């Protein structure tokens, strides 16, 4: 494993390096994913560009409209401990706090997590349920991508090769919205999810569901939006969610692996969707 390591202090030079070396360059943020891939020989870049010295990529702050901006290089632990993130929604805190162990969370970054696009990760479904977007910069300019559209397949994103995620922006939460992140861990506390469910839900004044946004992790090639469940929930009262939750099985595509069979995960997706909704409607 030999490569040239670059560590620019500004975003501009980082973008230039990425543009210049193209496929031969790979970004490293916290390194929790990249180092594993390098060591396993799955990545063999000629150039590795470290982002840790670029100060503009850090920080967590409320936006003027009441949303939240998380710099791409903010660590999971920083989000977990951020009063601003908790004030935005405790469910956001939960999603980041349920990642692996403190050692990993102290190192892994929000942008790195999203760029890695492992479908079993915890933050992406929650960020997607909140309607978050990422800002992607390249030497060609800047664009905004919904988190829900970022991952397109296992470990594959819609980012172009010369783009760097600079931030995640969460929109203001509509008054009365509830949110939850539940992670099913049948083995160990530090494991990836067997199934995870992120949901936001808003009730109308009559107590029925006015709006819902539900994303599942670890049951398909990307976080999966449970649109049929969302549609079926609209107008339902609490205590009447089982039928809607049952529809989740039609929307997901889990694989057999060390965390369970496809059939088991399908059933667990239903159980955990129901549990998440029950928690939100308590």
């Amino acid at each position, binding site marked *: 494993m030999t490569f040239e390591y670059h560590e620019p202090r500004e975003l501009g030079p980082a973008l230039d390096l990425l543009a210049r070396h193209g496929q031969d360059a790979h970004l490293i943020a916290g390194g929790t994913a990249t180092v594993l891939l390098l060591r396993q020989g799955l990545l063999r870049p000629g150039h590795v560009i470290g982002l840790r010295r670029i100060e503009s990529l850090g920080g967590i702050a409320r936006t003027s409209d009441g949303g939240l901006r998380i710099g791409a290089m903010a660590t999971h632990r920083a989000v977990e401990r951020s009063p601003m993130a908790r004030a935005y929604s405790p469910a956001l805190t939960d999603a980041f706090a349920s990642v692996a162990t403190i050692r990993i969370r102290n190192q892994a970054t929000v942008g790195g997590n999203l760029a890695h696009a492992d479908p079993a990760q915890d933050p992406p479904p929650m960020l997607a349920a909140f309607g978050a977007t990422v800002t992607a910069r390249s030497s060609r300019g800047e664009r905004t991508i919904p988190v829900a559209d970022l991952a397109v397949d296992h470990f594959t994103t819609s980012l172009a090769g010369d783009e760097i995620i600079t931030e995640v922006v969460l929109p203001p939460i509509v008054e009365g919205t509830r949110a939850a992140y539940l992670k099913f861990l049948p*083995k160990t*506390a530090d494991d990836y999810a067997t199934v995870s469910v992120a949901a936001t839900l808003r009730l109308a004044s009559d107590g029925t569901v006015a709006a819902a946004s539900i994303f599942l992790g670890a049951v398909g090639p990307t976080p999966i939006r449970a649109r049929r469940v969302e549609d079926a929930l609209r107008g339902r009262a609490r205590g009447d969610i089982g039928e809607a939750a049952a529809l989740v099985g039609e929307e997901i595509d889990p694989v057999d692996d*060390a965390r369970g069979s496809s059939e088991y995960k399908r059933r667990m997706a239903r159980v955990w969707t129901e549990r998440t909704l029950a928690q939100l409607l308590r």
Partner: protein
Amino acid sequence: MTTVAARSSSILTEPEYRIEGRDKVTGAARYAADVAMPGMLHAAFVTSPFPHARIVSVDASAARAVSGVRAVITGADTRPARFGRRLQDWPVLCWERVLFIGDRVAAVAADTPAIADEAARLVVVEYEELPAILDSAAALAEGAPILHPDSATYAYAGGARPERSHQNIQGHGVREHGDVEAGFRAAHRVYEHTFVVPRVHQAYLEPRASLVWLDGERVRVVTTNKAPFALREHMSASLGIPEARIVVDAGHIGGDFGGKGLTPDEFALYHLARATGRPVRSVMRFADDVQGTNTRHAATITLRTAVDRDGRILAHTSRVVFDGGAYAAGKPVATLMPGDAMLTLAGYRLPAARVEATTVYTNQVPAGHSRAPGQPQNSFAAESHMDLIARDLGIDPLDLRERNVVRSGDIDITGSAWHGTDGHVLLARLRAASRYDVRRKQTDETDGTGLGVALGVRHVGRGRASTVLRLENGTLELHTGVSDQGGGAHTLFQRIVASELGVPLDRVRVVREATDAVPSDPGVGGSRVTPVQGSAALDAARKLKARLTEVGGSLDGDHRLEVTGEASQEGHESSMYGYVLEAAVDVETGVVKVGRATLVADVGTVINPVALRGQLEGGFVFGLGQALMEELLMEDGRVTNPNLGDYKLPTIADAPPLDIELITEHPGPGPFGAKSVGELANPAVGPAVANAVEDASGARVMTMPVTAEKVWAALSARR
């Protein structure tokens, strides 16, 4: 003047400071992978991608052409060398056929690990795939390929290899006592159950590492092997070098769990060192270790037991088939089976029994020794079986065990009289310590919660050992060949010697040395360190004490005394332990949450109180991993979860509270009445969990591990 005092018992009651603790905590401790030599080369291996294939050709020319490559050797260079602890059936490098995915065909020595890896990838091997045996049932089926047609030519240490009825058998045993048929004829009920236990890995965190170089006439070896003298013997036998010319140095070992008695690298490293004239090191990646070395044996176990109306056992038969994988090399015992392969219903009074156990060759990763070999498999079967019997007879599971547990002199599964813990004492203590009757009532009244009971048995270690104790210029030095694999051996020796001589601990230094500087030692394993090597240390202290009069009775001054302590422990004493543990089952998901557990263990005299608890607590968590989640998932001979991200081990957050009660008042054969404790915790966790799960939910899982999905499936089948 420092004189020896009467034996100091206070030393043994104080919590110990670990001799090597500071070095480990500060990072000063050097493990085999940390050792480097000037001019050292790095090894990489070319391995088979097929579970069974004929090697048609090997072309190493492209690999040899890589800059920085110093040698590439193939099976043609090492044939006919094979290695193994008892049976030398594992080729150093294959030359004719490969028998599992991971079997080695060629080895490279290069300037860096990356170059070695790159060169290994460039070795072109042409294979002709052959039909593979992927499970133990297929090994003895008609028309099964014979994996070792030349086995008659293999070296077998210590006599003649036992006869076998089929060439795909590694080892076989049958034992019978009493009138089995009469027992079954007289039965009120007969129960038969079959259990399956998968391959698991020891999952030590320290990688296997070896460094070999030639030092004039000598072959020097630095290794993670926990039995350096045995490795010396094996290398001598395999490579044809006199033992006196081989020096093995095994220092700190970062986790063993039974797996580091076999090391496959040193043999090829010797050839690479000879070919290059330079030191050559290998450090194994975890994935290669999992796919390439001695895992625990998968087993299929059928138990059949006859009981009378009160649940008393009249007769028992059993059939155990272990999947030995491609080579038997990892097994040190003469039978070529896991050590306790035939203890299928240990700890119970058995008027009549017939036990049959077989280890077979398959095209899977070679199975070898793993913590308490044979016990987790047999314990899972036996203690689940006992619970199923109790449930069917409507007898409380602890009561059923009380009716059948052995007392001194009873005939047990071995067909001999039991010597060891009085089972009634143990179960009474377990009942009291766990508040069994109260908790039984509580769990019966609470949906989704249950209690699991399991009994465990383990022999006190046997064997011979010697150690040197030297008094020089007022300093006492114990010279030992025992590597500390984490159990606290050196601290134990220090406390034994200081205690016996009545001197402060800091007067006794423990010096571990390589095989050329200390008497031969059997190594760490078989629950041997405390009763055997510990007894040798005590013997040394006593001999020194007896000779102190020669120097005026004082430890001070410039005189020199040297004694060799010896121990031979050939008794057949065993200890018992038992669990009561609580589990809650989430019936919608099958998730098992183990709650408070109680472990009662008969440990005899305690020498290292902190390490003893650590051994028991660690053993419990080790057992819990295998009970709930650990399994090497195999697909056509390939491990599909060869990393600690997918092969999960319990974390501290997953460890439930454990109450430990020690039985210390019945002395054992070890120093000051000590026994062995290393395996008085782990094997019985699996069945205790399975039993608690059925008690909690009605779901009975007959295979390990008891995963959430299996519990969920069992519950779904009942609905």
